[in-house]
């Protein structure tokens, strides 16, 4: 009886037969492909980049276009508009002919959307405010993500007492309502009655430094990033490929950096834009409560607060920075959503 050998070529699977389109690609390139297909997310990202670029170009606008200093008050100044000389602060322009009213939107290079109560060009201030808001928002989100990532890797991987201490510490900050913690820290660190530099151990910070709100906001958000990542590290530690690496005698550091880190990185990347959106909102709220960015510096939040007293006469002072906040945060949220759909289609990561 003849024994048939399996035909060698019959066992070789052609690529087109396995239909391995999906199988053959790395998760990153798949995610990239999904993201590129999401036009809305790409548009949102473009908008965010545009806002960053415009804010970075603030000095260019202030010096070249509006010819103004966004920080210097200009109570008695005048400027030329359509060949006429106009007062920046107009006396008695209000409803009853009383009080002082800054000039309204000119829709020209100078005082494009008017002046604030100090006679400063609001458009230039909004652009400069964007620098502060974005700096603090991005900086504090990066800080929170980075610190949380390191702590979560340490806690999740080493477990035991290290994990217990770190997790309890995070629970404690978590139990502290976020805005109350921010207010407490800001009261102590920022709203001090003096302008003396702040010395904490070896760090010296100027009274109006943007680093102070950045640090405050960064610190209060650490637990929000820490929790989901630690959970993921814990579950990764049980996974076969990590156990395999450990069984092969890989050291702790090696396992953490080469096996665990790449797997939690996508979580951090998904969280980052959503975190920036959140920190920008928090910064604007603190600045609105005058415990964020301190004068003479301004952020979008402080300009909204400046505009509150002029709300019914010169609404643009409050509206413009608010629109910038909404656009930025919306762009980040839409992009973050797209990024999550692309990198984490089954949505393991969720804020809160």
């Amino acid at each position, binding site marked *: *009886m003849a024994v048939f050998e399996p035909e060698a070529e019959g*066992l070789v699977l052609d690529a*087109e*037969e*396995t239909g391995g*389109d*999906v199988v053959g690609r790395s998760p990153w390139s798949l995610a990239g492909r999904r993201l590129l297909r999401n036009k809305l997310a790409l548009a949102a990202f473009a908008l965010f980049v545009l806002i960053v670029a415009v804010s970075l170009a603030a000095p260019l606008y202030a010096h070249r276009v509006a010819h103004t200093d966004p920080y210097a008050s200009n109570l008695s100044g005048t400027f030329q508009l359509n060949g006429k000389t106009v007062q920046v602060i107009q006396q008695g322009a209000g409803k009853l002919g009383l009080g002082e009213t800054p000039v309204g939107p000119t829709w020209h290079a100078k005082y494009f959307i008017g002046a604030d109560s100090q006679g400063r060009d609001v458009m230039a201030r909004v652009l400069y405010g964007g620098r502060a808001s974005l700096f603090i928002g991005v900086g504090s989100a990066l800080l929170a993500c980075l610190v949380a990532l390191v702590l979560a890797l340490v806690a999740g991987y080493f477990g035991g007492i290290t994990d217990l201490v770190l997790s309890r510490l995070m629970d404690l900050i978590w139990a502290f309502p976020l805005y109350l913690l921010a207010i407490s820290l800001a009261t102590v660190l920022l709203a001090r009655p003096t302008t003396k530099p702040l010395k904490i151990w070896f760090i010296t910070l100027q009274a109006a430094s943007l680093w102070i709100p950045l640090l405050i906001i960064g610190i209060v958000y650490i637990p929000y990033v820490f929790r989901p990542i630690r959970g993921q590290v814990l579950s990764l530690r049980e996974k076969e490929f990590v156990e395999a690496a450990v069984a092969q005698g890989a050291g702790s550091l090696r396992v953490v950096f080469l096996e665990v880190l790449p797997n939690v990185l996508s979580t951090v990347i998904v969280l980052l834009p959503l975190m920036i959106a959140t920190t920008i909102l928090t910064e604007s709220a603190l600045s609105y409560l005058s415990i964020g960015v301190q004068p003479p510096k301004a952020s979008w939040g402080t300009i909204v607060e400046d505009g509150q007293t002029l709300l019914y006469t010169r609404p643009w002072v409050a509206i413009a920075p608010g629109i910038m906040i909404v656009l930025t945060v919306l762009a980040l949220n839409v992009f973050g959503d797209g990024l999550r759909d692309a990198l984490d289609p089954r949505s393991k990561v969720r804020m809160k």
Partner: protein
Amino acid sequence: MAEPLLSVNDLKVSFRTEDGIVRAVDGVSFTVDEGEVVGIVGESGSGKSVTMMSVMRLITDPNVIYQGEIVYKGRNLMQVSRDTMRGVRGEEIAMIFQDPMTSLNPVYTIGWQIEEQLNEHYDLKKGQARRRAIELLTQVGIPKPAERVDDYPHQFSGGMRQRVMIALALSCNPDLLIADEPTTALDVTIQAQILELIKNLKRDFGSAVVLITHDLGVVADIADRILVMYAGRIVEEGNKEQIFYDPQHPYTWGLLGSIARLDRPKARRLTAIAGQPPSLINRPQGCSFRPRCPQAFDRCRAEDPKLTAKVGDGHLDACHLSIEDKRARRDATINPELAETA
């Protein structure tokens, strides 16, 4: 012969995905008679679950495309209204799922979940549904049913939960019970108990049963007729004796070769089927099993084999090999020791 209870005619189920159209079920036809037990066997992704989910119209994916017809008691279920279909589900056709741990709603008591189905289909008085639920729990062998009826699913073990699922499925005396891998998620000892239970209840309730499994061993005892599915198609169909003692398709040989058998003289190595199932997006030309088939020859690449009766009454297969070739090669593949003595 009487009209079959269920007859599936050239059913095609596809899903639109970002990579193309996935033909999960690609032209499947079969019948189920009243009181008959049909086993559908195939590896994961062969389309066996999708076929039976289509019978229940339980696929909610908006990207699904159906073709063909599913005739149940003379009605084409593909075309009946949603409300008619709701009346069929649970009352006439019921289904048991693979994972009893996740198939019951965690926030309701099991009594509530059985009563919900009873109340949906019958006009029951207060207390009647509950009595019936306790009765059903007794029938499926739940100890202390009167107390356990108020327990939540998480308070039951896996095997007990599957019993609850069976009670739920049988609560309206369905004519057809679909069991989708009912024992896969359970321990081996529990598996046997559950299969025994299904067998006994089938006798008591007189339902026809379609048992879906990837394990030929599971259907060996219980099924009257067996369908073997591969890559969205039926590759062999026959009664139990035909499939186990005279399998025609090389894929069936592979399945038989990969189960441990006690009815053979000598213990031997289990053989695995090399390779992976083909892509359901770009089906290979010719026979779908050809890339993995050790017996493949030129014709298999060129021509798609049809499912036809070649060896005997009701025994269909889709393979180009001649009957003699098949028998010779089969014994060499799955029973080398028998082949040597022959």
